[in-house]
């Protein structure tokens, strides 16, 4: 049952991930991205990471997606018209991506520990918000505050970037 669900969600994620790249219309790409991230959130839940699964849905399917659709609407992007394709560049991109894929499969195939099944959990991870939060405010307190500064800088940067220039 778990294997069946794993392959369902993994295929959902990969098919819609490919649809993001293959669609010519940016709105269709953005909506495929939502479905792909929902499949990914389901995989997180299958790995007993409930908190990560939920923030994945909240942040990506909620905030990031609205931002993408809003920008597509603001710029009034239509489906790309066909331009002259640079076949050398396209072939080069496909070859480099295939080499990367073959390398990943080779490395994972030679990684003996990865053939072992997941060890069972002795306790339920239903309260992992508590566990992640405790770790975040003890061991990772400094990175957490640095990330706060980063978000502040990003906010200020976005405001400055989208302000109209004063003539």
């Amino acid at each position, binding site marked *: 049952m*778990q294997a069946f669900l794993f392959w369902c969600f993994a295929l959902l994620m990969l098919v819609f991930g490919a649809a993001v790249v293959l669609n010519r219309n940016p709105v269709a790409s953005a909506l495929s991205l939502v479905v792909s991230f929902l499949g990914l959130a389901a995989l997180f839940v299958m790995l007993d990471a409930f908190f990560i699964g939920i923030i994945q849905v909240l942040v990506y399917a909620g905030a990031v997606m609205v931002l993408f659709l809003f920008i597509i609407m603001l710029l009034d992007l239509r489906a790309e018209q066909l331009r002259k394709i640079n076949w050398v560049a396209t072939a080069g991109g496909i070859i480099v991506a295939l080499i990367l894929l073959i390398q990943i499969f080779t490395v994972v195939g030679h990684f003996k520990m990865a053939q072992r099944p997941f060890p069972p959990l002795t306790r339920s991870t239903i309260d992992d918000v508590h566990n992640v939060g405790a770790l975040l405010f003890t061991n990772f307190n400094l990175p957490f505050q640095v990330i706060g500064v980063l978000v502040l800088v990003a906010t200020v940067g976005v405001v400055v970037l989208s302000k109209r220039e004063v003539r």
Partner: protein
Amino acid sequence: MVTLGHYLLVSGTLFTIGFAGVMLRRNIVTILMSLELMLNAANLSLVAFSRFHVDLTTGLPNYNAQVFVFFIITVAAAEVAVGLAIIVALYRSRQTTHVEDINALKF
């Protein structure tokens, strides 16, 4: 039986799809979406390793990786916001989102 290797292969395939999108697409908004796919592929392998490395004393997964994923999601959200603001500023000055039209630095 689903093993760690299956999750790593799925994660690697998703990363490659995002990488191919960055290499092949010419619309800058779609390139940003492909970047998001690559970041999330990294998240998937981190969470899989977290579940694989069960702490023997507590019997819980290793939460360090999940905190790391939390940071990656925060950085990715900030990156999307800044990236889209740059795209809007670029569109205002050049009226295009096609990367081949933006060739001021091209040799």
